[in-house]
């Protein structure tokens, strides 16, 4: 979901105007999208890139929010530790934007029967959903949809492709 920022143009101009000033990359409070400091701390990008991000935080390529895909181990629906921060970031975003709804798509690799894989995909989506809820996100903001093996991301028939397909995707 994108925030239609009608003042965007003005901001850009003002950014250019202030281009000379040094900046540590911390966000300025302009732009209606994101507010600071809601607990998790990942909101505020300590990214070393110069320049601030204006526009919807969802589109910020430096934000963890840009990571929309969580991968899973074979036959597992538990969140791997390396994705916890990502999910926390998403939780924070959702908590700060109570009207935003995200759909968590669950997927499975192609092995085994198709309907069982639909159920597996749903299990993964639900795991992500529960995680977000545990982080305070309201359940009305989260939809789940399982595609099982029907929407592959990788089309090979080997471990690499299968690993890529075992995923949950957050779709805004």
């Amino acid at each position, binding site marked *: 979901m994108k925030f239609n920022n009608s003042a965007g143009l003005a901001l850009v101009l003002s950014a250019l105007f202030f281009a000379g000033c040094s900046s540590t990359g911390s966000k300025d409070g302009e732009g209606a999208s994101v507010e600071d400091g809601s607990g998790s701390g990942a909101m505020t990008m300590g990214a070393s890139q110069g320049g601030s991000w204006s526009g919807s935080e969802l589109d910020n390529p430096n934000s963890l929010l840009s990571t929309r895909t969580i991968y899973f181990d074979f036959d597992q629906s538990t969140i791997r530790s390396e994705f916890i921060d990502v999910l926390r970031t998403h939780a924070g975003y959702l908590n700060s934007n109570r009207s935003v709804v995200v759909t968590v798509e669950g997927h499975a690799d192609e092995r085994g*029967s198709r*309907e*069982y894989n639909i159920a597996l995909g749903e299990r993964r989506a639900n795991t992500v959903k529960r995680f977000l809820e545990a982080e305070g996100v309201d359940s009305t903001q989260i939809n789940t949809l399982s595609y099982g093996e029907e929407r592959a991301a990788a089309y090979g*028939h080997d471990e690499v492709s299968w690993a890529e397909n075992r995923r949950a995707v957050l779709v805004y």
Partner: protein
Amino acid sequence: MKRLFFLVLMLGASLQANAALTIEITKGAEGALPIAVVPFAWRGDAGRPPPHAVGEVVAADLKRSGRFKPLSPDEMLARPTRGEEVDFRDWRALNVDNLVIGDISPNGPGGFIVKFYLYDVFRGEQITGYSMPTTARDLRATAHSIADIVYETLTGQPGAFATRIAYVTSQRQGKDQEKVELRIADADGYSPQTIVSSKEPIMSPAWSPDGRKLAYVSFEKAKPSIWLQEVFTGKREKVSSFKGINGAPAWSPDGRFLALTLSKDGNPDIFILDVARRSLRPLTRHGAIDTEPAWAPDGKSLVFTSDRGGSPQIYRVSVNGGKATRVTFEGKYNARASYAPDGRTLAMVTRVDGQYRIATLDLETRDFRVMSTGRLDESPSFAPNGSMIIYATRVNDKGMLAAVSTDGRVQQRLRIQEGDVREPVWSPYHQQERIR
């Protein structure tokens, strides 16, 4: 194998006695019956032959069943097309047990009459013969009917050649774009017709017992729902669109109910839908995944896939619900069971050494047999005469359909089309009309 010669002489010491001589035969070769199907003659205008080579279709059907070994036309010593042209010596010499000859004559515009005769070569006599009026459109179906008659006359079991299959195809069109279709074709894969086309996934087609409807799962509008579509008219209606999963529709043997998988109550469980009344009742209630229900032919119980034991296995439950009992105990992964028409055997997907294969389980003897040899086989479905199982496999990165005879002896691949083909399901016998 030892040769057991068991000689019974009804004689005393003297050679005078006139007792009957009895000889026991204890060994024979097991194998497909040699048969010759002579290419049918065309009695009409040579410039406008009929659209299908009926003899070839018959021979291919018989071969696919695994019970027959048709002689290649190259090896035939003669090509009779009329009764009086048949000289049995030509066929005895080739050790062919049965002979089929026939011809096609024009019968009005777009019409034909197909005649065929079946002979017992070693008895030297005709067994049966038919004359069948048909049309260009139905010529292939007529050929399949001939194959059915030959099959049933010689084996005593009904053939399943004049039946149809439904399956899902998909073609990738650019990145993240896919064209998915639900199709119906003859049991040999010919004459496919599309009945649903979509950009979203279609899954789990299921024939109604009268062969007139297909139930399937469609993800149109970005959520899975279950639809019932009339095969002949194309009319369809949505019967299940609850929150969460709507999947794995399975018709009861009397066609009045659909078992399906719904996760609206928190996790995937099996429910039974009264199709006419649209009322729903739960069949399983368990925190694990319960899905892929299949009805026993007597309608009194269902089998389904459940991972309540830790990994997917097949369980059985009474149609009235209650405790489910586990059915499969071989290996750690058994799913997607489907019943043979006699209710005695289940086909399923099983995992063996990391490969996903089709296996059959005899519910009485508990014999568990792996039937296929692929790595990613799935979706087994029995022919309505129980003689073959059709399933999906992958060959060289392509999804294809394959068939195996239930005794495991003959394997075949069905060449259908480009793109991926999957989820085949065999129609019941009642398919009379052809769809428009």
